[in-house]
């Protein structure tokens, strides 16, 4: 077997089956022509090596014969793919919420593990199916092309009326808030410091659960309005500040309750060091929450008031003068 035969075989095994024979035949004849024109009819394997080297690596040559697209999902289909992926995540969120509600109404021992286990399975499985479908569309196995949607420049939203809030961002916030609260409700009897057969500090969570619930409802309401309006209006900014303050007050209540339990912790058998630590953490907590709020608020203030770095205008192109 000559070097050319080996080379063509290497290219051929990477080619689409339907064109393999014809391309191989043409490639062989082309390579022999090239060798003959450069080295004469008695070209050796060493001469062949020179020509093959110039022709390129077998995998690269084979790749050049494949249809234009070698994307898993190319630019043409990507927008639709990312849209479907978002819907997939929203459906997943809805499933988790439904599972958690069910667990609160009718708790079962391994219920939560099942909810999240199924959610992860669904996440991976559905993701795989979506990628597969879009890859088939990309490959043209299914003869469909993305629909060109008509649009009217008059329908474009005005950027002057407040910062845009992504729909997915709002829905994700609603789902996260509800899921977090439902997990707290479902597991309220397990959260605390276990000492012997007691669960210390658990009463603080149970006492504050209605307040936490109220904060969750206020947060969900905020995101429902944002979802509906699609952008931040000034009164929603004010509302958010209100919700933040409410959260801060709840944090304060919990923090004070933990500090006040110092004595009872020690009497119940907790080491003084651990009791001190819990008090110190409780003291720091409201300040940490406040710092995060101020930081987030400051960022928004910077964006809204336009105190941002703006790039200098580009020099005009000579032809536009």
């Amino acid at each position, binding site marked *: 077997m000559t070097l050319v035969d080996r080379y063509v075989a290497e290219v051929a095994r990477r080619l689409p089956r339907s064109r393999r024979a014809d*391309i191989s035949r043409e490639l062989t004849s082309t390579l022999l022509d090239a060798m003959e024109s450069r080295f004469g009819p008695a070209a050796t394997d060493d001469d062949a090596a020179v020509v093959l080297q110039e022709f390129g690596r077998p995998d690269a040559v084979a790749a050049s014969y494949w249809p234009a697209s070698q994307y898993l999902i190319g630019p043409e289909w990507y927008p639709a793919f990312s849209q479907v992926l978002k819907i997939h995540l929203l459906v997943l969120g809805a499933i988790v919420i439904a599972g958690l509600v069910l667990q609160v109404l009718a708790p079962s021992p391994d219920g939560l593990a099942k909810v999240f286990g199924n959610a992860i399975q669904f996440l991976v499985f559905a993701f795989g199916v979506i990628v597969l479908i879009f890859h088939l569309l990309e490959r043209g196995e299914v003869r469909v092309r993305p629909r060109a949607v008509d649009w009217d420049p008059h329908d474009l939203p005005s950027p002057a009326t407040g910062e845009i809030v992504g729909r997915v961002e709002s829905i994700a916030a609603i789902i996260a808030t509800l899921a977090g609260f439902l997990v707290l409700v479902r597991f309220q009897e397990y959260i605390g410091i276990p000492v012997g057969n007691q669960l210390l500090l658990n009463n603080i969570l149970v006492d504050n659960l209605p307040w936490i619930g109220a904060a969750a409802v206020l947060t969900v309401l905020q995101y429902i309005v944002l979802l509906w309006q699609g952008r931040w209006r000034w009164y929603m900014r004010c509302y958010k500040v209100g919700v933040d303050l409410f959260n801060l007050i709840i944090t304060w209540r919990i923090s004070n309750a933990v500090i006040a339990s110092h004595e009872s912790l020690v009497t119940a058998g907790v080491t003084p060091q651990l009791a001190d630590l819990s008090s110190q953490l409780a003291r720091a907590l409201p300040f940490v929450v406040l710092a995060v709020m101020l930081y987030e608020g400051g960022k928004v203030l910077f964006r809204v008031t336009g105190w941002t770095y703006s790039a200098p205008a580009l020099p005009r192109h000579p032809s536009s003068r």
Partner: protein
Amino acid sequence: MISSDVEERLAIELRRGVISLAVLSALQNPAYGYSLQQALVERGFEVEQGTLYPLLRRLDEQGLLESDWNVDESRPRKYYRLSPKGAAALATLTVQWDALVKSVASMLQGEAK
């Protein structure tokens, strides 16, 4: 050097844009792959082999070329030639090419002044 890399890419893109036109034009007379490549090189049109051969197949599949195997020579060779559809496409592209050359040339002259 970044700028020379960029320039090289631009030059390749520029050539790639007109390869189809050059190939259609050259195949007014039948030719097989290697002879076509040599003919293009002789006229000063360098084309990578990795671009030329797949392009021939694509144009063939699009019906712009006709091809058949000639087994009468020393080795079998696949000959390509312009199809009627290809001849129509060549005429259209030629008109566009002339307009493009004229417009770009006038711009380049303007810049040079």
